[in-house]
């Protein structure tokens, strides 16, 4: 009952702090919108600088055959499954002209086609297997887009050579995409991670809400009442959970409005988000227990926030690191971070169309972490701030 009294009071405070509430609710939807703008609702286009030095060959009928131009056209024609362009050709006369493009990251890679390229292709067409030529490629290898741009350009050039020379491939490769992943735009693949943002941001609200009670001295006043720390933190957690659920739902709605399609049931994704919110709020309580003021809570909360952002697979996949295994599942240090499980579960549901049973492990892990962090937060809060009573 007292927990509900605290819940009601906290909700009033949250609703009246319009800036904080607005920022918390708008954060993830804003990022969803930004990603949509970034990818123009689709996916990344990888620009490739093509240095076509092919001199071409004049055929007996008087026409000019330039294989380099055809490779360039083939690269430009590579698209995603929805028809949107995947590669973009930027023509460069020589390597000196291509280098600034690579340095400025206006091109992800370069492909240099030699002067004898057409001649070699024609010789191969006629069955002369003694000839060969060299396509040179490269770029800034520290550019994360380099591998994709260079690889796609080379694969396209190779496909052209095979088709133009009638060379049968030595090995056939067949791609089998997992779930509906082949049909996902890059914008859609980023949506689960963006949704996690809204959950991670709750750590600030949780830590600062509790720290305010300490800083203003209100905690002392509350200590004189029969209210327990469980009532106080439980009431605050319930209020924040509501805000977290609202933020997640808003993010989903914005994503759906911008063309996102969920492959699995959205309600399961919402359940995952809410439980993940609970565990992040629990972490916020731990942070608040270690601080005595709102500004301290804000500063300290940055540490777990950064851990959750960069070490839970939200932004980029984490390398495998097994501490031990339970029931055949390897447990890594990242598993203590709630977003690790949330991002896997959301990817499974939203991208691969998974159902409740498919994310049972992640849900169990999230529930366990939520209970663990909440109870640890209550214990620590009592020890750090209420022990003297």
């Amino acid at each position, binding site marked *: 009952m007292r927990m509900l*009294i605290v819940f*009601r009071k906290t909700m009033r*405070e949250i609703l009246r702090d319009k800036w904080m509430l607005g920022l918390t609710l708008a954060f993830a939807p804003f990022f969803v919108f930004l990603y949509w703008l970034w990818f123009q609702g689709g996916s990344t286009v990888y620009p490739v600088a093509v240095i076509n030095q092919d001199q071409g060959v004049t055929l007996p009928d008087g026409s000019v055959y330039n294989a380099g131009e055809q490779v360039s056209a083939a690269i430009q024609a590579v698209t995603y499954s929805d028809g949107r362009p995947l590669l973009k050709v930027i023509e460069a006369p020589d390597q000196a002209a291509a280098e600034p493009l690579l340095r400025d990251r206006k091109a992800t890679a370069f492909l240099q086609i030699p002067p004898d390229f057409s001649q070699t292709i024609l010789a191969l067409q006629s069955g002369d297997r003694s000839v060969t030529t060299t396509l040179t490629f490269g770029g800034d290898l520290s550019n994360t887009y380099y591998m994709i741009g260079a690889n796609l350009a080379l694969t396209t050039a190779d496909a052209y050579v095979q088709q133009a020379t009638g060379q049968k491939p030595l090995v056939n490769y067949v791609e089998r995409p997992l779930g509906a992943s082949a049909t996902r735009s890059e914008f859609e693949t980023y949506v689960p991670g963006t949704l996690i943002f809204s959950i991670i941001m709750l750590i600030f609200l949780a830590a600062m809400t509790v720290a305010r009670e300490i800083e203003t*001295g*209100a905690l002392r006043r*509350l200590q004189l*009442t*029969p209210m327990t720390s469980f009532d106080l933190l439980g009431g605050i957690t319930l209020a924040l959970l509501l805000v977290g659920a609202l933020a997640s739902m808003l993010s989903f709605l914005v994503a759906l409005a911008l063309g996102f399609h969920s492959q699995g049931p959205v309600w399961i994704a919402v359940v995952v988000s809410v439980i993940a919110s609970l565990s992040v709020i629990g972490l916020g309580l731990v942070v608040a227990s270690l601080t005595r003021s709102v500004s301290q809570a804000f500063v300290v909360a940055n540490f777990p926030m950064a851990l959750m952002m960069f070490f839970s697979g939200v932004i980029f996949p984490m390398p495998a690191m097994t501490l031990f295994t339970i029931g055949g599942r390897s447990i890594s240090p990242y598993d203590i971070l709630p977003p690790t499980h949330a991002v896997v579960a959301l990817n499974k549901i939203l991208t691969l169309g998974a159902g409740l049973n498919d994310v049972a492990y992640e849900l169990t892990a999230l529930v366990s972490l939520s209970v663990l962090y909440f109870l640890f937060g209550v214990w620590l809060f009592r020890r750090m701030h209420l022990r003297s009573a």
Partner: protein
Amino acid sequence: MTSIVLQTQGITKRYGPLTAVKDLSLAVHEGEVFGLLGPNGAGKTTSINMLCGLLRPDAGQVSIRGKVITNGDAGVRSRVGVCPQEIVLWKTLTCVEQMQFLGELYGLKAAYVRQRSERLLRDLDLEEKRNALARTLSGGMQRRLNLAMALVHDPEILVLDEPEAGLDPQSRVLVREYVKSLARRKTIILTTHNMDEADRMADRIAILDHGQLLALDTPEALKRTVGEGDVLEIELQNDASEQARAALAPIVRDVSAANRALLIRARGVVDLLPAILAALSTAGARTGEVRLRANSLEDVFIAFTGRRLRE
């Protein structure tokens, strides 16, 4: 004889090497206004926190109506209402909302809390601000609301920490009158630096310093401990305090000197004034302003705690 409501028996609190409160034993009677005086760092706040169960003593015990509260019994702690010196309010709640919140946390029925809140707000002249957010109230209003919050659950013991601090004269009178009206119906523990406030309001006063109880009695009895009668203060315009004291010895017994001023305590000191001034003149002391006042609690306070500045 009134019964003892709150009692401490040898309570001690240490913070590392510092002993904030040492072996403090007090008994506060039902319906009395009990003043707790002491310079900064004397141990008043630590004592108050132990009295209301917010702080566990390292030794000794505190009991309310005979029931020990050091076990953290919230039911016993609920009998105490604390009005802290700092304004402790939830700034984005209205006056009524925060009283309702606190009252319900004490387990009181919503309707009762509403009724009681309205009454307290009326008594403390905050009725018109009942639906105003606390952050929009003036400093004086916030202080009055701070007091109302301490009373929302109708506690048996009310602890007031510097209740008149930060109040304008009108609010000060209002709060003083209100606290006076509570006296006898509630037991009030008052900590203050304002000696006049303590003199006017307290039935008994305890003086603490360095965590120890130095004196405990009624204001009048305490004043008697530093001398009978009135106090005459005479400023000296030259450095002749020693000669002045020697010259006055045959006329008055209690003469002290500090900062080029003489403090003379004696019964019927007004009648002795011509003789005093003549003796000073003969001794070569040039006199400045002459003030006559009644013996005050401040004299008691300084006599017990000294003139040395505290942090």
